[in-house]
Every structure is written in structure tokens, then in C-alpha cells.
């Protein structure tokens, strides 16, 4: 009998198929990639000529939007995408089917997470290319290593947080609500759609969560008023810490079947009382 396929081959194949699957699900494609691009175009058409005042100077809002929405796209491709898709597959029994095969658990999860990271990176590059071509986004090559590292830490952390969310979502019917209830309000106070003041209650709320530090760290890599390498080690450490907690929750609580299924089955199959 031949041996099991190599780990690398398994993960590459899983990742490839997950990307293929993503591309064939129109709703996922729309919310993850198309909608942020629509927002980028719309926001720039509406407000693109304005500037925002930062400590360093007047910043064209076009550049602010491109960086912020690109970071948001990365979050949407990982956190939102996993949070929406995985519960559906769990409800449909697809996860349980995989559980019956010799594919190791971690290889399946790696394929899911890596595919979402690849999708995130490609979408971000697409947004940045649009920013450069259409909206004067300044690419300072000195800061690109920082941008790449920031993006990778961000997508890895938000992918982990997405899987943590999956583990607390009970059924797919509630997943869209859970995803949007956790990410949308946060996006409004995290410099994605609107620049917020660096003080006040909402700012303090936002700094407790990982979205604003990630968005700001990524925006800084495209902020012409910030000198140097563009690295924000403090923010990245904070985002990574959230990611690590997410990963722990995901590993501890991940379930292959919709939760509550055994007890429902149990109630149905309650035996008739014997006399």
C-alpha cells in the first residue's frame, strides 16, 4: 500500500480547492472583494477631494481611504469570510464528511485559513493597485516591507479570530448577523470609513479591539507624512495577541457538527416509557 500524501501536497491541494470554491460562491465574492471596491470608488467620488488633518499635516483623504479600505478588505476576506462560510459548511455536513476521511484536522483548517489569507492578499493588492492608478496613492518602497508584515500579521490574526467566531456561532442562520454585528460597528470607529478623533469615548473603545490598530498600522505604511520604515511594533503586537487568543479559542472549541445537534437528536429518539 502506498503512503499518505505529503503534508505540503495536502495543504496546497486543500488551499487551491478552497480558493476555487470561494471564487464560485457569488455571495462570498461580492461581500469580500466587490463591496470594498465599490466602497472605495464611492467614497472617493463623494469625499475624495477633502483632506484630513493629522498631527503630521494635511492628508488627501483618497490615500486615507485606500489604505483603510484595503485593510478592511483583508479583514473581510479572513474574519468575515470564514465566519460566514464555515458555519454554512458545518450545517450542511461538509465538515462532518471531511471528519470521516483520513485528512488530518489541521490540514483541513490550514487549507481554509491559507485560502482566506491568499484571497485577502490578492484583494489588498488589487485595492492598492486601484489606489495607485486612480487615487494618487503614494507608494514609498522603504515602507513596503512594513506594509507586507503588517498585512500578514493582520490577516493571520483575523483569520484566527474568524475561526474563534465560528466556534461560538451555533448555526449558519445566525452567522451573518454575528459577523456583521462584531465587525461593522467597529469599522465605523476604527478609521475605515471615517477618520475619527484620537480621543474621546469611541476612540477608547476602538483601541481595545484589534481592528483600529491594524487599520492604522497599515494606513501609516502609505502615509506620506510618516518617515522611517513605517513599522508599528506596538500595534502589531496587540493585533497578534488578539490573534493568539482567537486561535486558542478556535482550537479549544472548534466543532465539526452544528452545536446542539446531539441533544436534538436525543430528544427525538427518546424511547417510549417501558412499563
Amino acid at each position, binding site marked *: 500500500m502506498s503512503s499518505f500524501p505529503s503534508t505540503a501536497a495536502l495543504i496546497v491541494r486543500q488551499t487551491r480547492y478552497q480558493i*476555487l470554491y470561494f471564487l464560485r*460562491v457569488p455571495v462570498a465574492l461580492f461581500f469580500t472583494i466587490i463591496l470594498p471596491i465599490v466602497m472605495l470608488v464611492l467614497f472617493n467620488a463623494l469625499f475624495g477631494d477633502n483632506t484630513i488633518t493629522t498631527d503630521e499635516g494635511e492628508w488627501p483623504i483618497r490615500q486615507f481611504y485606500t489604505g483603510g479600505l484595503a485593510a478592511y478588505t483583508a479583514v473581510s476576506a479572513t474574519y468575515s469570510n470564514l465566519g460566514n462560510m464555515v458555519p454554512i*459548511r458545518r450545517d450542511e455536513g461538509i465538515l462532518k464528511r471531511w471528519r470521516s476521511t*483520513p485528512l488530518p484536522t489541521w490540514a483541513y483548517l490550514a487549507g481554509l485559513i491559507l485560502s482566506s489569507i491568499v484571497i485577502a492578499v490578492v484583494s489588498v493588492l488589487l485595492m492598492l493597485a486601484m489606489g495607485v492608478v486612480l487615487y494618487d496613492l503614494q507608494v514609498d518602497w522603504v515602507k513596503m516591507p512594513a506594509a507586507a508584515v503588517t498585512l500578514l500579521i493582520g490577516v493571520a490574526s483575523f483569520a484566527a479570530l474568524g475561526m474563534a467566531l465560528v466556534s461560538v456561532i451555533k448555526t449558519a442562520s445566525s452567522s451573518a448577523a454575528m459577523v456583521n454585528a462584531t465587525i461593522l460597528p467597529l469599522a465605523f470607529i476604527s478609521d475605515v470609513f471615517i477618520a475619527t478623533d484620537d480621543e474621546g469615548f469611541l476612540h477608547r473603545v476602538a483601541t481595545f479591539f484589534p481592528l483600529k490598530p491594524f487599520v492604522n498600522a497599515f494606513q501609516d505604511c502609505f502615509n506620506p507624512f510618516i518617515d522611517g520604515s513605517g513599522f508599528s511594533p506596538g500595534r502589531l503586537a496587540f493585533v497578534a495577541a488578539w490573534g493568539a487568543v482567537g486561535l486558542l479559542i478556535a482550537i479549544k472549541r472548534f466543532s465539526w457538527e452544528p452545536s446542539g445537534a446531539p441533544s436534538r437528536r436525543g430528544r427525538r429518539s427518546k424511547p417510549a416509557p417501558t412499563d
Partner: protein
Amino acid sequence: MAAIEVDDLHKHYGDNHAVDGVSFRVEPGEVYALLGHNGAGKSTAVEILEGHRIATAGSVSVLGFDPAAADREFRDRIGVVLQSSGVENEFTVREAIDLYGSVYRNRRALDEVVGLVGLEAKVDERIGSLSGGQRRRVDLALGIIGTPDLLFLDEPTTGFDPSARRLSWDLVEQLGQGGTTVLLTTHYLDEAEHLADRVGVLANGRMIAEGTPSELIDGISGTVVSFQLPESVAVADAVSTFGTILDHEVRLCGRFVEATVDRSTQVVHRLTGWAVENNVELESLSVKRASLEEVYLQLTEQAEEG
């Protein structure tokens, strides 16, 4: 070594004993059917054997493995066709077979698999566009792709049209002849009778009977007398009238009167005697050996009463 060895298996959800002390053995190469109502405990028992659930008590050995601690080696040697398990609808049949097949050590070729399940014409169609019966064939295909030594089939032909059913029966027979052990659960008595070397009947989480289909049939009073209800007898009176004539409990199945009897010669004699006397023609009169269905109904009725 037995392919499956189950000893005093229990699965409790609180006070609900879904599986309540079940024991059985399945030999290598055998096709074994678990029969039972919904909620009799058969799916729970099978899911424990597959490693999807942890038993409350009892010992289970499947291909020499403890499924609760099951690893890759174990899952490589089993095939599982679950009752309601989705598959990625956006993939084509070919893509799904390629993807799922890629994780096994000893996979069957694509052409062989689609040939076995009869999906040759659909191989490049998306699974989401297939009919219910065709999707069930995809389930079967993914169950056998890894050349399993042991195949679990949880109600494999539910939703099949008669020709698809025949085809999957042929497949199970073929696998059985090839040495694959098959554990099958089904509602369809004719399916168990046709396919299974041995049958276990579950009710209320307990095994109430076990044997080859003919042993089970022989084990009960085994002849069914049936005829069309004569026009001269009102439907409302049928059960009492013929109950008296036959001196057996009779039942009305559509337009047919049926009784399962011990000594059919005497019963038929009384029945035809009555018919001749009253100048009644008994249409479609038949005397045949009880099928597994009658056995099952009797057994489960006894279990309910007991």
C-alpha cells in the same frame, strides 16, 4: 479478528438511553444490516463505530481500532456514507472525487468510481445541479473512493428511484463479493432482505433480534394469507368477520385482507370453505412465506408492548 465487535454498547443523553446495551459482531466480508424505526438507536450506534460520537459505556472495536481514539490509519480504511451529509455543491463531480480521493493512500481511479455508481454522464456537472438521487450517488462515490475495507452505509438508498436503487444494490453486492465489509442501516426491509448476510433489529436502543434474513423469517410464525376484500363484506366489518373465520388476527392493507398465520393449510381451508359456502370469489388469494417486513413489524410490536 472480527471487522466489528461491539459489546454492551451504551450511549446516554441524560435520561435518554439512545443505545442501551447493544452487542454484535460483523465478520470480515460480511454485509450486515441494522434495522429499526427512526430513533431506534441505529444511527447513534453507527456514528459511534465511525468515531463521530463517544460511547457512554461498553467496548467497541472496528478493524481492530478503537474508533473513539481513531486516527488517520483508521479513517483510511473505512468509507462512510452518512445520512445527510453535504458536499461542496460548487464543485463538479470530477473535482469532488479528485479532492476527496487525494487524501487516501489507496484510491480508486476516477473512471472506476463513476462507473461503479453510474455517474459517467454527470462527471463534469456541478454537484449543486444534480438531482437528489444523483447526489446520493456522489455520496456513494466519495464513500468508496479510498478503497475501504469497511463501508458504513447510513440509509444509502433513501430518495432513490427504483433503477438507482437497483444500481446501488448491485454496487453493494459487488463490494461484498470483493471482500469489503459493509454495515448498513436501512428502513427498507426488502433492501436488508436482498443485501444483508445478517440482520440486527434495534428497538428502543436494544437489539431485539439478530440472524440471517431467513433465520429471522423462520423464527416467527411465517405464512401470510392475503386476498382482496370481497364486495359482499363491508370495510368496517372486514377485520371482525375474517378474524372469526380465520381464527387469527387480520389486518386491512388498502383493499387487501392479510393475516400472518402458523398453519396456513387449515386457515386456507376454513377461508375457502366459507367462500364456497357463501358463493364468494376471493380475488388475488395468495399464500406466501412471510417477508422480513412481517418479521420486523411483529418484533417491533412485541418490543413496544413489552
